[in-house]
């Protein structure tokens, strides 16, 4: 009897201490806006007006953003992407060179999105880490699509949307936010561009073994990470909703298979 009472007391104490710690750790809910996901074509040139609605990952809030994208700008980006040339000595070096060219080319065209996301952050008084999370969640919320350098009919895509015959199997950030077609590295490149423009220290990591690309971010966090020049870059899965920073999916969790493709050396 004494043992049972001792055990129950132990459980109750553990429960109360944990509840207290969790209360301290919980972030305050941020005022949410409700809007609907979608886009509409606003003229015969195929320009689009987009509305995105997405939720934060680790705290209770939803965000709403609207933007307009132009078909002609997207096509111009695609044309420049097709002309990217590269000289590389390895898998990660090759992709790093391609990603850097795309990012430098895109900075001027996606400035409006950087401004729009910063405005939301200011309005909701988000911290730096919450701003990074809001940006990653914005991209995670866009459903995954295949972007292939071959025809979609020649690849097992299941029911997933697919865009085929794209040089390098990768879209530029502007093409992505215009078409909303994005695979792993298309997403990583968009997030990298947005975060770098906002003064963060992101990294793109690639894995030949997993045939996958992912974002990593130098930010106070915990979990799976790579250390580069004394800084910890925490992995961030971007292909599906709800993945927090520092958590590698079990199917891709061997850190040794991940190589740095791109990091801001300055």
């Amino acid at each position, binding site marked *: 009897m004494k043992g049972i009472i001792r055990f129950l007391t132990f459980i109750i104490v553990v429960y109360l201490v944990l509840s207290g710690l969790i209360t301290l750790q919980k972030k305050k809910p941020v005022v949410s806006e409700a809007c609907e996901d979608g886009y509409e074509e606003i003229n015969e040139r195929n320009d689009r007006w987009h509305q995105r609605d997405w939720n934060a990952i680790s705290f209770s809030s939803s965000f709403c953003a609207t933007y307009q994208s132009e078909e002609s700008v997207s096509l111009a980006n695609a044309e420049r992407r097709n002309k990217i040339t590269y000289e590389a000595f390895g898998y990660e070096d090759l992709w790093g060179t391609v990603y850097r060219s795309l990012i430098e080319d895109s900075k001027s065209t996606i400035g409006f999105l950087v401004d729009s996301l910063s405005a939301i952050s200011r309005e909701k008084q988000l911290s730096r880490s919450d701003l990074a999370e809001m940006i990653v969640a914005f991209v995670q919320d866009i459903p995954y699509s295949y972007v292939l350098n071959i025809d979609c009919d020649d690849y097992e895509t299941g029911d997933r949307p697919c865009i085929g015959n794209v040089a390098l199997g990768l879209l530029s950030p502007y093409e992505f936010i215009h078409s909303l077609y994005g695979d792993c590295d298309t997403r990583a490149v968009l997030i990298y561009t947005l975060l770098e423009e906002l003064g963060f220290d992101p990294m793109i990591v690639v894995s030949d073994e997993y045939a996958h690309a992912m974002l990593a971010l130098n930010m106070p966090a915990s979990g799976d990470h790579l250390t580069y020049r004394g800084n910890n870059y925490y992995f961030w899965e971007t292909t*599906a909703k709800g993945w927090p920073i520092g958590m590698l999916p079990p199917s891709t969790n061997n850190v040794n298979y991940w190589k740095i493709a791109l990091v801001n050396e300055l």
Partner: protein
Amino acid sequence: MNYNIAILGLIEIFSAITIGIFILALTYKIVQWVGKKYYQIKDYNLSYSIFTAAIIIAVGIMISGIVEPLISSFRLLNRQSDSFTLAFKYIGTGAIYIAIAYTATVFIGLISTFLYSKLTPIDEFEEIRQNNVGVALIISSILITLTLLTKNGVVLLIEAIIPYPQLPPI
């Protein structure tokens, strides 16, 4: 200092200490009880102490593998519930993970003892009862080695029940 990470660190430390105290005390009590009741082993038996220590180390090795999956589960559950519900879910999840790891350790303990008893013509528990330190050391080594070999598999088993978000087929 990052406040949220500090609190997450405290939750991790608190969880590890709580699980450690609970599991190790429970294991010690069970092993002592089994030794006394079924094998009439006395407290000052050095061989049995070595064997008990090996069991405690094996349990510790296996249980250490559940802390990381437990924290992953906590981070995934964190957004969905209020503090008291989350604490309840966290303790429940922890109990399931501990049960899996503990069952695995008991299973490995039984296998190692059985393996050694089949390999040798002697009665191991009789030898331990008679304070044969050599036999205790070898059984303990088999137990710890098997635990080290199986730990990753057990952790993977636990990972399989973490409610990770769905991923597209990449």
